[in-house]
């Protein structure tokens, strides 16, 4: 994928619940390759590529990014905010944010004795350069959301950008719909509202009723100073998920993906993620249940403005996904 398209996917505005813009960008990219493309009630973007086997595979990557929602505007024009998804308050202070209409803001915190480490969401405020409430209300309203101002930084083989979670996997789906050849009906679903509880994936799976679900998301790594022990490292390949806080991937589904990787000569790692859930869990527990697994891209500093991954892992993730889609026999959990 060319750098410009990747950067567009990564930096288009789309916090949880307000995904229309990124949906529109992705829709333009996938529509030429799909037999059908549509948005459902919650805004999930679905692109279907029909096959002949009668089996349905649902792929998912979430379009939404974490952000801050404006809860109040004070008389001096400062915005008081709350988190949308897992936003760390101390990590937000000192960063620039941007609203849907392009308004820029600076995030800072109410001075306290203990410093920034103790700061909570309701100690933060956003300065949009307004000098009064009236002036601020010309630019933003209560209920509007802002996101970290996207910075796209290529560092050798690695990429740093606040929205790798999960736009890097949205990019992977865009590449896959162009490249993959599958006998099965493949639903490329760009889901909404993952960051607040996997809401879009469940409703999409309910409507599609897939025979197999493969979600794509980022996962943590254990390769930074004082990291929690974790076997995943950047550059050693995409992962086949074993387990996270939302799901234990059925061994049959995991083996299916590992076999696809081994046969195609694609390096991969096995991943157990503590303290994070993914669309995989929501798909798994739809209706009477769905065999569901996940391909993850190891990412450092998740949910910070400087998320970092290895582009070789990204390329191999696309290859692994295509290899799975090209299998004739699908796993039964």
């Amino acid at each position, binding site marked *: 994928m060319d750098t410009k398209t990747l950067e567009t996917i990564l930096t288009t505005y789309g916090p949880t619940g307000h995904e229309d813009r990124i949906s529109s960008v992705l829709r333009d990219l996938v529509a030429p390759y799909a037999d059908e493309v549509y948005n459902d*009630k919650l805004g999930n973007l679905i692109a279907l590529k029909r096959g002949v086997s009668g089996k349905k595979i649902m792929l998912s990557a979430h379009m939404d990014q974490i952000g801050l*929602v404006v809860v109040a505007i004070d008389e001096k024009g400062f915005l008081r905010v709350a988190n949308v998804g897992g936003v760390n308050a101390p990590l937000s202070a000192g960063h620039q944010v941007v609203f849907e209409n392009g308004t820029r803001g600076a995030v800072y915190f109410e001075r306290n004795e203990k410093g920034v480490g103790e700061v909570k969401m309701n100690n933060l405020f956003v300065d949009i350069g307004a000098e009064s409430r009236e002036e601020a209300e010309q630019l933003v309203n209560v*209920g509007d959301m802002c996101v970290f101002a996207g910075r796209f930084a290529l560092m050798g083989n690695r990429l740093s950008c606040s929205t790798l979670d999960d736009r890097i996997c949205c990019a992977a789906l865009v590449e896959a719909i162009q490249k993959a050849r599958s006998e099965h009906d493949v639903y490329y679903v760009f889901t909404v*509202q993952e960051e607040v509880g996997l809401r879009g994936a469940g409703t999409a799976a*309910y409507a599609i009723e897939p025979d197999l679900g493969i979600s794509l998301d980022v996962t943590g790594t254990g390769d930074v100073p004082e990291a929690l022990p974790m076997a995943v490292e950047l550059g050693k390949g995409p992962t086949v998920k074993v387990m996270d806080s939302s799901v234990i991937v059925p061994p049959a589904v995991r083996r299916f993906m590992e076999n696809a990787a081994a046969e195609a000569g694609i390096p991969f790692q096995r991943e157990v993620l503590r303290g994070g859930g993914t669309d995989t869990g929501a798909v798994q527990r739809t209706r009477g249940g769905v065999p569901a697994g996940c391909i993850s891209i190891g990412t450092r500093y998740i949910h910070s403005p400087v998320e970092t991954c290895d582009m070789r892992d990204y390329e191999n993730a696309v290859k692994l996904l295509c290899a799975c889609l090209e299998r004739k026999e699908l796993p039964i959990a």
Partner: protein
Amino acid sequence: MLGRLEQLTNIYGVSGDEGRVRKYLKGALDDMGLAHKTDAMGNLIVHKAGKGRRVMVCAHMDEVGMIVRGVLENGLLAYEAAGLDPRVVISKRVAVGRDDVPGVIGAKAIHLQNREEFKRALAHDELYVDIGAKDRADALKYVKPGDRICFTTKFERLGEDIVKAKALDDRVGCAILLELLKNDYECDLWAVFTVQEELGLRGAKAAVWTAAPDVALVLEGTTANDMPKAKEHEYVTRMGHGPAVTFMDGGTVARPRMFKALQQTAKEAGIPYQFRQGSRGGTDGGAINKALDGCVVGGISVGCRYIHSPASLASVSDIQNAYLLAHAFLQTKKFDEVL
């Protein structure tokens, strides 16, 4: 509607024990000539069949309360509470079980407390319901484990615009929903009085399968924290400043079109409104929006000061305007504009 609100708030209807509220509402529906059915969980469902969009409007019948966990040797009752700050129950009058046995939640008198006790709030498991029984055997003549414990606050008007009652959350919603059912709207309307919202949206999780709506309105009582020492950005809502429209809560992020449509409805009809200025807290909307293949949910709430306590306050004009807002939304078929 205010008369109905008085009757509704005075009824004992703790989560899981909504029977009396349901009975009252069934009577009101019968008087209105409306058919209704009760599902396996106790949700009361009114389906006003019509062409067009499947729209669900709901309010929950249950109030926060307690349940008898055990009877002690000395005749005091140990209880379990859900959604109640232990600081609001001390010295309150309650009614226990089917026979409404009167009791009090007492605590050690101030004269007897030592310095440390004096400073610390007592937890629920340090508090007891006293029904005046001599001992365990005596108590068991009147009550038993599993009996519901409800506050006994009576509805009162305070001045021109304010009402005081228990259970404003969410008998205000029930009163508004009953009022809405007097009208006919151009949609396939599913009005649901849900159970066990306070325990985790349990009734709604089931009822949504019956209603299977594309669009839903949730009528709730919500926090009004407009107190002298509170910071303005922590008020959530201000009592008397109009019904509150939700942009986000613990279970939903309002779809942009729904959020705009509710504001547009209010502006067109000249109804005062405010934003629910918070991002947490749950309502039945959290269960409804992600059920089946998804549903676009709008929240209209009445701010209640001292919510989830034996006595809360709300503004009559907020309640009336909340009704007008929901009514205008349905009447002008805004549900067709939010998908």
